[in-house]
Each structure stands twice: as structure tokens, then as C-alpha cells.
């Protein structure tokens, strides 16, 4: 099956995406990742103001069959958390690149964006 991999995102090998188009970057997990997990039942996210370091754990996503740690694709500070996921964790399955976003982050000067995979590189990884 083919998975959605938007070209306007950058990716971490562990399947998190970052969208840095706006002032604050958004972070979530990929279509491939949500499919691998199965039905998501719980997402544990950090608090606003928490600092993130690239490749460090920032939370946990739990599905009916697995639990996975979430790794930050960038260095930065959390400015918003998607509260909708508390009551509707299924948004991660339904719309992983949209309504299922997890965090908004103010990027650090040394954000680490250049170290991430492009959409093409990520596509290659999951094929």
C-alpha cells in the first residue's frame, strides 16, 4: 500500500515529521507510523514551555497493540500541545499530517532541520 508523504515536511528516521512553514513548527507522526501502530488510544505529550532536543524522547503514543516513544525531530521549545488528542487520540490515525498534529515548537537557532530526511528520502526509507 502507498502512504501519504507530504513534500512540505521533513522527517526523522523514527517517523516523526516537522512542518516549519509557519513561525512555529508543527510536529507529528507519519501516515506510515500510524498505520504500523494501529488504532491509537492514548498520546502522552510534554507541557508547554518544555525544551526539546533533537532525537530525544518527548512523549509516548499508545495503540491497542503497541507503545512507542516519540522522538523530537528538532531542537526547540514547546509552545502548544494538541489538546484535542486527549479526547480524540484517533485523530492521529485519521489525519496524521493535519488534525493529528502533536506539538507546536519554537525552533532554536540551531534547530537541526538540516539533519532531517527530505520527503523523497523518507519515502525511500519506508518502501
Amino acid at each position, binding site marked *: 500500500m502507498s502512504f501519504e508523504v507530504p513534500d512540505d515536511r521533513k522527517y526523522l528516521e523514527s517517523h516523526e515529521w516537522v512542518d516549519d512553514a509557519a513561525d512555529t513548527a508543527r510536529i507529528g507522526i507519519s501516515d506510515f507510523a500510524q498505520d504500523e501502530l494501529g488504532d491509537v488510544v*492514548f498520546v*502522552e505529550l510534554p507541557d508547554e514551555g518544555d525544551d526539546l532536543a533533537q532525537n530525544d524522547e518527548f512523549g*509516548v503514543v*499508545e495503540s491497542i497493540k503497541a*507503545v512507542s*516513544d516519540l522522538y523530537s525531530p528538532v531542537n526547540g521549545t514547546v509552545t502548544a500541545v494538541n489538546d484535542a488528542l486527549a479526547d480524540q487520540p484517533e485523530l492521529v490515525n485519521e489525519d496524521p499530517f493535519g488534525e493529528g498534529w502533536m506539538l507546536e515548537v519554537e525552533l532554536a537557532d540551531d534547530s537541526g532541520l538540516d539533519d532531517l530526511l527530505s520527503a523523497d528520502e523518507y519515502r525511500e526509507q519506508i518502501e
Partner: protein
Amino acid sequence: MSGRHESGDRGSPYAPHTAEETAAMLDAVGADDVSELFDIPDEVAFDGEFGIEERTEREAERHVRGLLSRNDDLTEFLGRGHYDHYVPSLVDHLSLRSEFLTSYTQYQPEITQGFLQALFEYQSMLVELTGLGIVNASMYDHATALAEAALLAARVRSTDGDRVLVPDYLLASRRDVLENYTDGAGLTVETFATDDGNVDTDALAEAIDDDAVMVYAENPTTRGTVEENLTEIGDLADDHDALFCLGSDPVALSILQEPAAVGADVVVGDAATLGLPTAYGMGLGLFACRGDFVRQVPGRLVGASEDAADNRTYTLTLQTREQHIRKERATSNICTNQAWVALRTAIHAAYLGPDGLVDLANDCVRLADDLADRLDDVTGLQAPVHDRHHFREFVAHTDQPAKAVTEDLEAEEFAVHAVGEHEVQVCITDSNQHAADQLVAAFEEVA
């Protein structure tokens, strides 16, 4: 089937594989010896003989019966954490049914709805008795539940802290387990004073600070008193962002202040006061906590749901907290529970019903009061030591050394705890009340 299987040497009638089968399996995986399949460092490997004498089943039975016949047959008035209530025969008849008598864990809901429902009922009864939103399917015993409560307190607290405050009456056996569990988590266990069998709230206020993660108290206490300062203890804990953990049991909870109403965040205890006799040291760790800690609860939880046909169903739930799913991030390293004991407790509680449970609890107050009054009339005794309400048990002062008194009572075939140089502790319930007159008479002889 009778006689010995002659198809190869098993070495024992209980071993499943013959020598030939073992050799074939080793050959298939390319190993010469079973030891090659394991990587056990020499320094921990047992290298010796167990020294177990070989006996036939009949000889073993005779030997064990001989050992058992050496037991004293004392009438026990012992409490201090182990309480004996009459267990109706119905509990045996139901719990010993083959559908229930299994060590199988209820992981597959499609084949174990009955047991899961029983555990859900056990949890639900204790939710009602504690007023707290979550009860797990049990820990090992009171001590392990208390230790898990301390670890939970450290996990859920938003700021650092490392002090666990316990009253001076905490049983050494419980404290040992608590220290064993908390040591690795970097917590320290500290004692605060009590006053006349209750928490000394001034001493607690003095002891508590923002480094305290949990305050523990009991109701009823180890010394049998009913704690009168629960709300103050809860408020003090709350003021310092510490959890208030209350130790109790299902019988006492039916008439004493509801833990949730006095600010308790966690309730621990031994639920096997119902469903099990006191022998053999088996317990049933009661663990209840506030609903918002649901993802931090240690141990198993049974949840209710609906199947595809809208039938009410039960299943182990939120297992991602558990070690078999996420070893390094689990809330606890307990990987089992006392399911069968919890079943017996649930059956016993259901047999009594709410009114029967309250009646039993009221008996525990009345019997202790009556016996204390009678012992107070005995020359050489003052009972109770504490000017408090009591539940099941009380401490009495002895003019003679307490040890001598309990040894003399033993000669009269009564077992009573000596708890101080001149203090004994007496526990009376529905299961030994028939011997109260004889106990008073024995005390008159020896005190």
C-alpha cells in the same frame, strides 16, 4: 493409564521428555548439552546438591503429617495485620471449581469472562468502600501495596522530593518492604510520632516539608485504634503537595470514615481479611487510588467494555503500564496479582452484602470494647492503654513483664502478642469470640 511408561528414561515420572527426545532436540539446534542453551555466569550458578532425600509419595505424606502434628493448637487472639474472620463454606465451594482454580492469567478475554467479571466485581466493591476511582486487581499484600504507593507518589508529583513519612506504629515487616522498594528509587523513609495511638498532628506538621512525597497513616492502626485526625493529615499532605496514603481493610472501611472524603489519594491494605483464613501468611494487597492516576497505577486492571454485539464484556486494560509490555517504562515490576484470592474475597464480600459487612464491622468494635472492659477488671491489667475507639484489637498494660504473661498464656493454650515491656495486644473477631471467657479466665490466672 497405569504403571510406568517404558518408552525411554525420563529420570522421573514427572518429566515430560525422554532422554531420546532431549537428545533429538539438542541435535536439532546443534547443541551437545542443555547447559549450552543458557548463559548463566558461574558465580551465580548453583553447584552442589540440594540435599533432598528421595521419598515415595506415601513416605512424603507420612513425613509431612508428622511435621504438622508437631504444631501447637493454640487459640489465637493475634492481630497486628493478620485478621481472621469466619469464611463461609460457600467461598470454598465456588472458588475451588475448576473454572476458577487456575494460575492462568486472564489475558485472553474470549476465554475468561467469568473470572474477569469476578475481578471487576472485586475492584468495584473496593471502589465503593474507598470512594476512590481506581482499584487494581491486587498486589501481593499490604506491605507491597504500601511500597507501590510510595513509588506512585514519587511518579505523579510534579516536583522533586524524596521523603516518605510513616507513623511510629508501622510494623517492621511493612517498613522493611517499603524501604526495600523505595531505596532504589532514591526515597528515604522517615518516622513521625504518634500520641495515644493516633497521629500526633503537631509532630507531623513539624516533620512534613516540601520534600515529602507521601504521608502514610492507618485506620484502624496497627495498635487497633481508630484514627481521629484523618482530615488534618490529608490537609497537611495536601499543603505540601504530598500524597496521603491510608492503610485499612475492607471490613473496617464499611463503617469508618470514607478515605476519599478525608482527602486520601491512595488506600492500601490487606483485603484477605475476607475470603481467607490467616494461616500460611498469604495476603491480598489492596490498592486503590484517585482516578486521575489511572495511567500510573501498578499492577493489573480489569475494565468493562462492550463487544461487537453490544454485550457487556470484561478485559484486562491499560496493560501498557505493565512490565510485560514495556519493561523499562513500566509503572511497577510486579507482573502478577492474587487473582484467586481476590476472587475469594469478592465471593465472601458478596455473600455478606453491604449490611452483612457493616454488621461484621460493628461486631469488631463491640467485641473489642467488651473484652477490653473485662480485662480491665482483671488485677494486674489495664485495658485499653489508649483512650480511643478500637477496631478488632487493643493494647493492654500488664503489671507483670509482658513476655512472661504471653508465655504463661501460651501454656494455657492462648496466643497473644507482647508488644512492649509491659504491653500485650489482644485481637478479637467473630472467629475467636467463643473463647473470650476462657481467655479472661486465663488472664486472671497469669496476669
